[in-house]
């Protein structure tokens, strides 16, 4: 009977119930869409720069990140034991060092990046950015250069560059390498000073045989924190430094944090609007029903029963609103996950300049829907506390005099 009364009460003022349910639906749709877009954008950003280029986690010889010299290199075999770590998908060793590059009369400082060109994850990244020429082939000593560097030094494919640098423990490093391809690394800065060669050639050039300067760690799944912890536990912290992307790219972490905070602010405003609109409804309802509640108490209905009926009413409406909202929003979010929004025009340029793909796929993380649904649901319940207090204080004679 309690449930029947609640159900009938909802249909008693259809328009108001529809408005209430609609505002809940709207809040769910809006908050879930917004959070999915935001988190999707972050995920994509991380996947691109962090996932492919920088890696979520890197291991270096202790002190390398602060002072990027060739002397701060480690022996690759010292990290071999990590290959047995189940939280880890792959390790790519890289050599990174500075050199002076010369071509005809031009000389420029460059960063030489030696990569394992046979590793799939490395190939994927570099091959995507190749805009001219060919990729690095095994056994060749060819190099790839950034498109900015190509322009400055006026290089065509097939030309050779001469590098001069300080090698391991003060030795002199020098060599001549033919340019086989041009890459666009998206960031102008990277394009102006990047040279990519095979890991073997880089080791030869710097005179660091069997050594590397950074190990890019691919975590098994999205929970890179777990991988980081597992690695840190295995390594001697006096010899190695384990860094995650947040430590390596504090600006990106900050950017995401600020953006997320902005989103939270917008959501708080949305929740406030929802709270006030629901509160308005609840207030009107409580006033209207006051008389009726008075009658019910007078003829012998306990307040606890009236409270339950009113709770059922709220529950039915908020559950309906939340479920309908999710039914509306989940297909939309799913669609834009598989067919991401393409940014165009200026927006696209700006985003690409920062090294990000100009698309926003939505995140499919079920936690987003769940948390937003719970928040909206909680707001509805909290707002209805007013009715409950009102019922508790009912005095039948007063209520019926109105």
């Amino acid at each position, binding site marked *: *009977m309690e449930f029947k*009364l609640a159900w*009938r*009460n909802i*249909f*008693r003022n259809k328009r108001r119930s529809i408005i209430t349910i609609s505002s809940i639906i709207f809040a769910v749709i809006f908050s879930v869409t917004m959070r999915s877009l935001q988190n999707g954008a972050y995920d994509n950003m991380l996947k691109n720069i962090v996932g492919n280029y920088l890696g979520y986690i890197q291991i270096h010889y202790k002190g390398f990140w602060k002072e990027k010299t060739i002397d701060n290199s480690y022996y690759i075999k010292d990290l071999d034991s990590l290959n047995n770590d189940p939280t880890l998908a792959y390790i790519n060793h890289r050599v990174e060092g500075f050199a002076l590059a010369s071509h005809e009369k031009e000389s420029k400082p460059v960063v030489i990046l030696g990569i394992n060109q046979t590793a799939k994850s490395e190939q994927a990244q570099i091959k995507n950015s190749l805009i001219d020429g060919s990729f690095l082939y095994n056994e060749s000593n060819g190099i790839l250069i950034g498109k900015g560097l190509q322009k400055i030094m006026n290089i065509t494919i097939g030309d050779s560059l001469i590098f001069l640098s300080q090698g391991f423990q003060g030795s002199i490093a020098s060599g001549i390498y033919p340019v086989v391809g041009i890459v666009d690394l998206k960031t102008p800065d990277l394009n102006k000073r990047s040279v990519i060669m095979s890991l073997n050639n880089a080791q030869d050039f710097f005179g660091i045989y069997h050594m590397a300067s950074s190990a890019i760690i691919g975590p098994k799944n999205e929970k890179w924190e777990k991988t980081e912890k597992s690695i840190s536990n295995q390594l001697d912290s006096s010899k190695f430094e384990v860094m995650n992307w947040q430590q390596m790219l504090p600006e990106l972490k900050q950017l995401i944090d600020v953006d997320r905070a902005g989103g939270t602010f917008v959501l708080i405003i949305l929740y406030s609007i929802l709270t006030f609109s629901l509160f308005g409804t609840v207030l009107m309802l409580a006033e209207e029903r006051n*008389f*009726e509640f008075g*009658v*019910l*108490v*007078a*003829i*012998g*209905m*306990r*307040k*606890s*029963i009236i409270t339950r009926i009113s709770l059922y009413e709220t529950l039915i409406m908020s559950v309906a609103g939340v479920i309908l909202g999710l039914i509306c929003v989940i297909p939309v979010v799913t669609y834009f996950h598989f067919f991401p929004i393409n940014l165009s025009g200026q927006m696209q340029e700006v985003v690409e300049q920062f090294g990000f793909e100009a698309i926003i796929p939505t995140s499919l993380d079920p936690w987003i829907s769940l948390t937003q649904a719970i928040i909206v649901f909680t707001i509805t319940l909290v707002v209805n506390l007013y009715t409950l207090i009102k019922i508790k204080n009912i005095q*039948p*004679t007063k209520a*019926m005099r109105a």
Partner: protein
Amino acid sequence: MTYQSGDIKVQALQNIDLTINPGEFTAIVGPSGSGKTTLLNIIGGLDSPTKGSVKINDTYITQLHEDELIDFRLHNIGFIFQSYNLIPVLTAKENVEFLMLLQNREEEFRSERTLKLLKAVGLEDQIYKRPNEMSGGQQQRVAVARALASKPSFILADEPTANLDSKSSENLLNIMQKLNKNEKTTFIFSTHDQRVINKANRIVTIEDGKIISDTSQ
């Protein structure tokens, strides 16, 4: 009984000593503001007196806690209000059945009694109508059926005919009278209406919160 409104105290009732016996058909009469509603509210446990006590059967209801008092009303007192006060979302049948549901009565008992009562008030053809689909007189007759449904010891009715035209008033009073005669249902009602007063077999007159006459006829 003293009401406090702001700084002003209103003595609505004083020195009331009244005993109602089972089977009586009592009218409480008196001018507006004399204390009729206050008296009925105190008898029904809707208001509590500043001094004194109310004893129904063997229970001092003035000593009951909130939920006990609500339960006491549910099982012992039937209420009829001036403005009907049916539950708008329930049909006539459901309105009558309602209190029996609160009393946890069996399904069979409920539907049998509901039909019997609606028949007694002459509404057997209106059982599926909601209050807003019925006239005032019909609604008040549903209210009488509802008041009887819980098998109360007596029924309190504060100006039950005030909102009704004379024909509906007469009809309602006849029904109440019949229930009083045939079923020995005790009625206590307040009224201004002389024709209603004439049907009572006991008339209690109050003025300024005091009983000034108490006659049986």
